[in-house]
C-alpha cells in the first residue's frame, strides 16, 4: 500500500496539535518511512485470525455499585491552571 503521503493537517486537527510547517514536513517524511516498514503486515495471511485486544482474556470484570470517598474540591482543583467558584475556568468555548 502506498501511503507516503499522509494528510498531516487532518491528523494534527484530530489530535488537537498545532504543528509548524517544519514539523509537518519532518513528521510527514518520518511517518511515511515508519508506515512503509509496517507494510510487512500486508504479507501476512490473517484470514480468520481473531484480533487480540488484551494479552490475557478476562471477562466480566465488574465492581459492586458502592460509594467510596472521593476528592475534596481542593484536591480536585489543586492542579487546575485556573479555577473560580469551585469550578475549572476555561476560555470561552467557541464552536
Amino acid at each position, binding site marked *: 500500500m502506498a501511503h507516503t503521503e499522509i494528510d498531516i493537517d487532518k491528523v494534527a486537527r484530530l489530535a488537537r496539535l498545532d504543528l509548524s510547517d517544519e514539523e509537518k514536513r519532518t513528521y510527514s517524511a518520518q511517518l511515511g518511512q515508519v508506515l512503509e516498514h509496517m507494510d510487512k503486515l500486508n504479507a501476512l495471511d490473517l484470514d480468520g485470525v481473531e484480533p487480540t485486544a488484551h494479552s490475557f482474556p478476562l471477562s*466480566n470484570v465488574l*465492581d*459492586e*455499585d458502592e460509594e*467510596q470517598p*472521593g476528592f475534596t474540591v481542593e484536591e*480536585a482543583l489543586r492542579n487546575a491552571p485556573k479555577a473560580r467558584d469551585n*469550578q475549572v*475556568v476555561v476560555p*470561552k468555548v467557541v464552536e
Partner: protein
Amino acid sequence: MEYEPVIGLEVHVQLKTRSKMFTRVAYAYGHEPNTLTNPVVMGMPGTLPVMNKEAVRKTVQLGLMLGCKIAETCKWDRKNYFYPDSPKNYQLSQFDQPICEGGEVEIEMLGASRNVMGDHRTVELTRIHLEEDVGKLTHFATDSLVDYNRAGAALCEIVTEPNLYSEDEVYAFMTALRNMIVTAGLSDCDMEKGQMRCDANISIRPVGSKTLGTKVELKNMNSISGVRNAVAYEIKRQIRALTTGYEKIVQETRRWDPVALETESMRMKEESHDYRYFPDPDLMPVSIPAEQIEKIRSEIPEMPFDRQRRYMNDMDLPYTITSVLCPERELAEFFEEALALTKGKGEPKAVANLVVNELIRDLSAAEGGGRQSLSECLVTPAHVAELVLLIEGGVITKQIGKDVWVEMATSGKMPAVIVDEKGLKASNDSGELATIVAQVVADPKHEKAITQFKEGNKKALNSLIGPVMKATQGKANPQQIQQLMREAVAKL
C-alpha cells in the same frame, strides 16, 4: 404534494446507580460543584476505569423489558473527541457491540378524546448501549466554568429506528418509555434534571416516498412537552421550506429555544466527525450468563400498559381511571394494597375513585410546587380500605365520606375513629328521619315537584333529597330517604 415527517430518536437515560459508571465515587443530582469527583472522574494521569455491575444489570433489564436481544458479548470502546466537559477527551461508549440490539416500545397514540383509549402500536429500536456522561459547562461572557460532578455518571442511550411520524407519536413514545423506566426503578427520568435527554432526527418526504429527506438533528429539549413542541415546530419549518422554497433544508444540528418556541441552527462546524473508535484496552468485555439474564428478567415488575389491560379486563375499571393509575407504579400499588385490605368487600372502582380523585388532589395540593410523594402523605392504603368499607357498608354516607377523608388526611386518624369521635354514623332512626321527611314534603315550596312525581316523573322527588340531607347534616342514608319520601307522598 403532501409531505410526511420521519423521525428517529436518541434518548439518553441516566441510570439510578449509587456510584458512577466506571469508578466508585457517588453520583447524585444537585450537589455543590466538583464535590462528586475522584482521580478517575477528573481524568488524572494514571487512572483507570472499572465497570459498575449495577449499571450493566439495569441496562440488561431495560433491554429485556423492551424485548431487545442481549448481546452474548459486548465491549467498550473509546470515542475520541476533545471538549472541556470530557475529562479524558475520550468517552467510554459502545461502538459496534452494544449491550442490547433490536427491541421495541409499545406506545398509545392519541384517542378520539381524552376519555377514549387510543390505538397502541410499537416503535422499533435499533439498539441500547451504555456510556459515561460528561461534566457540565456554564457559559459566561468571556469564559466558561466546568463542574465535573456529572462526569462519569452511568448513561444508557436508546436509539430508535426512524419510524415515528408525528410530534404526538414522539410525545407518546417519550411518555411510554419514561413510564416503563420509572416503573422498573432504572432511572427517575426527570428531564429538567437531565436524567432523561432526547435528540430527535427529523426529515420530511413526500407521502409514499421510501427514501429519507435531509436529516436535521434537534437538541436541547428539557421536557417531554418541549420535545413535542420542538418536533412540531421543526416539521412545520421543514414542510414550509419544501413547499415555499423560502428556506433550504440543510443537514445540521438545531437547538430548541424553549422561550422563543423555535429551533435555531447551532452553526457547528460540521467537520466530519472522526471519533477514532477503538476497543478500550483498560476494560474487559462483558458476557452475561444466560441464568443471570433469566434472573434479571424475573425481577422486571409489571409494565404500565400490561397493568392497564389487567385493570380494564379483570377489574372492569374504566379507561379514564386506569390511565391515571397505571403509569405510576407507586399509585397503582397503593390502589392494589388498599383493594386487598378490603378483603373482597370493596368494589375496585370505589377504591380506585378515592385514589384517583381524593388522593391525587391532596398530593397535588401540597405546598412547594410539584407533587407530594406518597410516602409523605398521612393517608395509607389501610385508611382508604377502611373508608371504602364504611361507605359501602352504609355506615356513613358518601357525602360524610368526603369529610372523613379531609379529616384523616390532616390528622392521620383512622376513618372509623373519626366517625366515632364526630358521631358521623348514618342515621338509622327512621322515626326521626320520617318526621324530617314529613316536614319537607309538607313544605309548600315542594308542591310542584310532588305533583310532577304523582304525574309519573319518578325523578321529580330527587330535588327534595337535598333539603332532607341538610336537615340531617348529611348523616341520612339516601336510599332510606327515598323510601320514606315515597311513603310520605303516598299518604298525601
